[in-house]
């Protein structure tokens, strides 16, 4: 019953996400979707992920998105928020895809291998840090790269048309020395991870 409630919540919020003209509202309804999703996670025996999702998504990602949205937001609605890109086609595609997925899900019959036992976060941790340890390491590396990327890309925004000349060879020396700045962050991230990749 609770699952059904969360599902309805998620779907309604999702439709809202599509429908709202105000991007802020869309983003907030996305947050609602994620919250409902967390509920579904709990129902599906994944409390740890529910918590993690709530923290990462709702606590951090959405906030940042909202921040950027508001940063870029003009006084009134923009043209691109008012209209939709190929609305008919998109909805047809969405409907078709959904119906195909629906048919596929309804059809399958897979049986659980064993009677149900509640999940243990410790077991997840054990799996993650034994057999799948290297996935965690790679994810760490990816976070490092993403951090550097975010810094380098966003930094470009501070420096300006001089850079549009291109290609990096003729960069004026007056520019802020970037490598060290980003690499410091990089190092922080690297040291935060256990073990590292070296």
């Amino acid at each position, binding site marked *: 019953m609770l699952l059904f409630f969360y599902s309805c919540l998620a779907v309604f919020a999702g439709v809202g996400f599509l429908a709202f003209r105000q991007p802020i509202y869309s983003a907030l309804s996305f947050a609602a979707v994620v919250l409902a999703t967390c509920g579904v996670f709990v129902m599906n025996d994944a409390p740890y992920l529910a918590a993690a999702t709530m923290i990462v998504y709702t606590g951090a990602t959405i906030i940042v998105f909202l921040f950027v949205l508001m940063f870029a937001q003009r006084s009134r609605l923009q043209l691109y928020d008012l209209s939709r890109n190929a609305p008919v086609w998109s909805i047809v*595609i969405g409907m*078709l895809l959904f119906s*195909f997925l629906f048919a596929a899900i309804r059809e399958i019959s897979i049986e659980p291998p064993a009677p149900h036992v509640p999940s243990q976060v410790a077991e997840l941790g054990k799996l993650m840090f034994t057999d799948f340890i290297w996935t965690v390491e790679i994810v760490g590396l990816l976070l490092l790269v993403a951090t550097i990327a975010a810094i380098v890309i966003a930094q470009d925004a501070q420096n300006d048309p001089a850079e549009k000349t291109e290609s990096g060879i003729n960069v004026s020396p007056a520019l802020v020395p970037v490598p060290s700045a980003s690499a410091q962050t990089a190092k922080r991230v690297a040291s935060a991870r256990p073990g590292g990749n070296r």
Partner: protein
Amino acid sequence: MLNLVWLIPLVLMLALLAGVLICLFRKGAELAHVPTIVGLSISSAVSLILLFTSQGGVHVAITEGYTWLSLGGMHVPITARLDGIGLIQLNVVTCISLLVAVYARGYMLGDPGYARFFAIISAFVFAMVMLVLVGNLFVLYAFWEGVGLCSYLLIGHWYRRPSAAKAAMKAFLVNRLADCAFLVGILLLWHGIGLVGAENLATVGRLDFDVIFDAVPALAQRQPDLLWWVGLLLLIGAIGKSAQFPFHVWLPDAMEGPTPVSALIHATTMVTAGVYLLARMSPLLLLTPDVLLIAGWLGAITAVLGGLIALFQDDLKRVLAYSTVSQLGLLFLAFGAGVNGELLPLAVVAAMFHLITHAFFKALLFLTAGNVMHAMGDCIDMRKFGGLRKVLPSTHILFLIGALALVGAPPLAGFWSKEGILGLLTLEIGNPQYGSVFAIWLFMGLLSTLLTAIYTFRAYLRTFWGDVKLPAQAGAHPHEATAMMLAPLYILAVGSALIGLVIASTGALAEFVLPIPFLTDPHAHPHAGWWLVIASVGLVMAGATIAYYSISTSGVAAKRSGVPARFAELTSNRFYLDEVFYFCLVAPTQHLSKMVGIFDSQFIDRVIRRGATIPSAIGGRLRTYQTGVLPNYALTMALGIVALVALAFLRG
């Protein structure tokens, strides 16, 4: 020991690589001859070692050198087939090449294309060696074409000279014509061998010589017509490369190339590839006597025709070129004797014998002609010089030795080998089936001996005797060639003088050559009858006399009248064969191509043009979808996904 053979192509390839690098970097051009000569020295040493170690030992040895391609069921190794024929040809090629390359080091000095020349020489020898070595007909064809390409490049060495460019093109096209037939023959053979089994063999391996030799008897029983065509087409390939009637027209023009090239490629090595091919394929030809008959007739005609044309040529190199044509005719004539299957082994032996001796004395003659040319400032017209005996004493002696060897003066090389061929023809004169043919051939052979003597001595007398006369180009002090250039000539002269005697006296050639599948040594070595020896020596002397009188009585530029003049005109115009070629082949082709051209431009071209616009029209249409707008791209992607999923549903 046998794997040593791979050293030869290896060093030649390295020499080629070095040559290419020198050409590309345009540095060190003056040292361009070093890699070539070093490579050739090593390879001739190796081939000599192989020759002397394998005698009486392994006769047919196949070594796999390098697997070019090996996947799944397909396996294309490059194998070397070392047997008597191959070894002899290998030695001829490498040794003569070495001597010519040493000579060319002096001859080509200062030429702007010096580096290019030696690079292509390396490439040529590499291709030629591989042609001789490989154990697969298809691979042989690849190098056959490679040799033709090198020949084209070398004839056109002075490509800025229109005549050279033209000659190169002519040689290339005539060769291509014959090569096409050759290729068709190979493909037919491939098909035929597939018919009689050997399905389990990988496709290309089906053309290994052993497989061919195993399969041809069955093929001869089941598909004699097919085999006949194969034989004929192979013969056409051979006569194209060996400049036999009617494909001989390219060879005299090929003298536009530098003289070492004429000596190497167009006198001794490449042009004998046709003979080599016939010898190599003799187990197949054994089953197609008609083809051998054709070969014999073509050879006989060529031998006489070449001699006749050579009579009235004024260009020393052209005389030698026609002489080459004529001598190659004799080789084919020898194969004709194989029409009687029992004689084919002897024919192969005789042909190989003459091939060896011919390589020596013809290379010697060409290179001495090169000396003359060198001294005369590139003038080779015999009307413009004379009495060079005093100017070029060493060259004179060398030329004389070569000339005597060529005409077949008794102790010299040409005598022994030519007697071998003519003696072969005498053996079967009594044969009820072919006797008359053999008689005619013998007569033509003797006639060509006479003609050879006449034109050779004419050329010799006109060049070296009489009053000293020098062309304007020669400059004030024409000089003898350097020692560097003369040294190889002395070696060749020794060879020309002695090799016939050596081979004939030991009599080892037959044992060495003959272990060819299905050909057994009949142990009936042709003994040239004494009357034949006397006849041919008489003919030589008669020829010399005629030559002497034709010069001394009529003078060099004497007026000719009546029948002899008409004849002279005919021969000096090469029997109008070029024109015949033109009218029979080139002109119809041109007309046809014009007609085809009209058809082409009116019909095919339109269709093709219309067809060719389709892709660009599609492209033009499609590019309108490249709008640059990201959501459109995403939309198409999503549509694609939906379509694929729908497809899965439909099929599932």
